[in-house]
C-alpha cells in the first residue's frame, strides 16, 4: 500500500512530462500583455493554454476612460483551436484593455483581461 503511494508520489515528483493544462488561460497575446506599442494595431491575437470553444468564447475592448469600443466579432482558426483574434477599428493613441472570456474544451469557463498602450 505504502509502496503504491510512494511510487505515485515519486512519479508525480520526478516526471515533469508534457502536462496538459485543464481550463484555458491566456498564454500570450499580440500586442503583448502590458506592452506599449508605437504602431496602431489592426488586431489583437490571443493564444490560450488549451483548445477553446468558439461558440462560447469572445472578447471586448475598452479604451481610454474605460469606454467600450466596438470591434469585429472574435475570429477563430479551425486549424488552431487555442487561438482567438479580435479585429480592431482604427485606434487613437491611449490605454486599452481587452476583456476575454473563453470556454475550454473541458467545458470550463474562464475570463480575464489585459491592457496595452498605443503610443506612436
Amino acid at each position, binding site marked *: 500500500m505504502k509502496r503504491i503511494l510512494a511510487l505515485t508520489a515519486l512519479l508525480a515528483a520526478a516526471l515533469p512530462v508534457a502536462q496538459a493544462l485543464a481550463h484555458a488561460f491566456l498564454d500570450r497575446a499580440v500586442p503583448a500583455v502590458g506592452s506599449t506599442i508605437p504602431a496602431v494595431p489592426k488586431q489583437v491575437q490571443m493564444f490560450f493554454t488549451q483548445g477553446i470553444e*468558439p461558440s462560447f468564447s469572445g472578447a471586448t475592448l475598452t479604451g481610454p476612460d474605460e469606454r467600450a469600443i466596438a470591434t469585429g466579432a472574435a475570429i477563430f482558426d479551425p486549424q488552431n*483551436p*487555442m487561438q482567438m483574434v479580435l479585429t480592431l477599428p482604427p485606434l487613437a493613441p491611449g490605454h486599452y484593455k481587452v476583456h476575454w472570456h473563453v470556454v475550454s474544451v473541458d*467545458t*470550463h469557463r474562464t475570463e480575464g483581461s489585459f491592457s496595452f498602450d498605443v503610443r506612436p
Partner: protein
Amino acid sequence: MAEALIAIRFVHFASAMAPFGIGAFRLYAFAGAASVDGPARDSFDALLARAVLPTALVALLTAVAIIPCVAAEMASSTALAFDPATATAVMFGTEFGHAWCWHVGFAVVLVALAVMPRQRWQPTAATLAALLLLASLGWVGHAAMDMGGGTSHEINQMAHLTAAGLWLGGLAPLGILLRRAVRPDGAAYVPLARVALPHFSQIGYVAVTLLALTGTVNSVMLVGSFRALVETPYGRLLMVKIGLFLIMVGLALVNRFRLVPRLSGSGQAIVPLRALYRSVIAEQALGLAILAVVAVLGTWPPANGDMAM
C-alpha cells in the same frame, strides 16, 4: 448551478458504473461453475438482470440533466440553462457536445436492451453497451484536452473508468449476493458466494492494478508535481481520493487473505461470510465517497492550471 452539477455528476457516475459492474459480474462470477446451477443461481441472476433497467434509466436521466448545467456554465448565465439555442450550441457546437451525444446514445441503447424480452445474447450485449456508456465518460472533462496528452490521456481515462466500473460497480452485485447468503434461510446462496468470491478477487487484482497505473498517469498529467499535490486545493482533494482508494485496497486485501481462505475450509462458512458482507458494505461506502470526491474534482481547475494563473 455548480452545486446541482456536482450532485448530478455524483449520481451519474454511480449509475453509469453500476450497469457495467453488474453486467460483468453476471458474466464472470459463476463462469465455468456448472455445480452451482440451480434455482438460487437463476433467482440471483434474474435479480441482477432486473437491476440493469433502473440504473440505466438513472444514468440516462442524469446524463440529460447535466446538459443544462453545462449550458449555464458555458454561457455564464443561469438564465440560459434551459435556453434551446444555448443547448443546441452546447450539444452540436462544442467538443463536449459531440462526446455527450454518443454518451447519451449509449445510455439509450442500454435502456432499450434492458426493457427488451430476454435473449441469450442480451446479457453480453447489455454489458457491452454499459461498457461504452462508462468508457465514453473519458471523452469529456479534464482528460479531453487537446494538448500535452490528447488521445493518450483519453485512452488512459477510459481504462481508469473501466477498471473502476469492474471494481466499484462489481461491489453492488457482490453485496447483494452476500446479503442473501448470510440470511437465516440463505443456505442455498452460500455455494454461490464460495464460487463468486475468488472470481471477484481475480477481477479485483486486475482492476486495482489498472486503477493505480492509470490514476498515476492522470495525476502526473493534471497535477504535475509533488508540490502541486500538497499545496493546491485540487492536489489536496486528489490526495483524499488516493487515501480512500488505499483504505479500500486494504479492506480488499484483508478480505482476500484473511476471510476468503476461511470459506474453503471445512468450518462454518457463515462467520467469515458475515464479516465479508460487512466489509463489502464498508467498501461500497468508500467507493461512493470516492465518486463524491470525483464529482467535485472535475469541476475544479487542476493543480497545474492554478499555477498557470
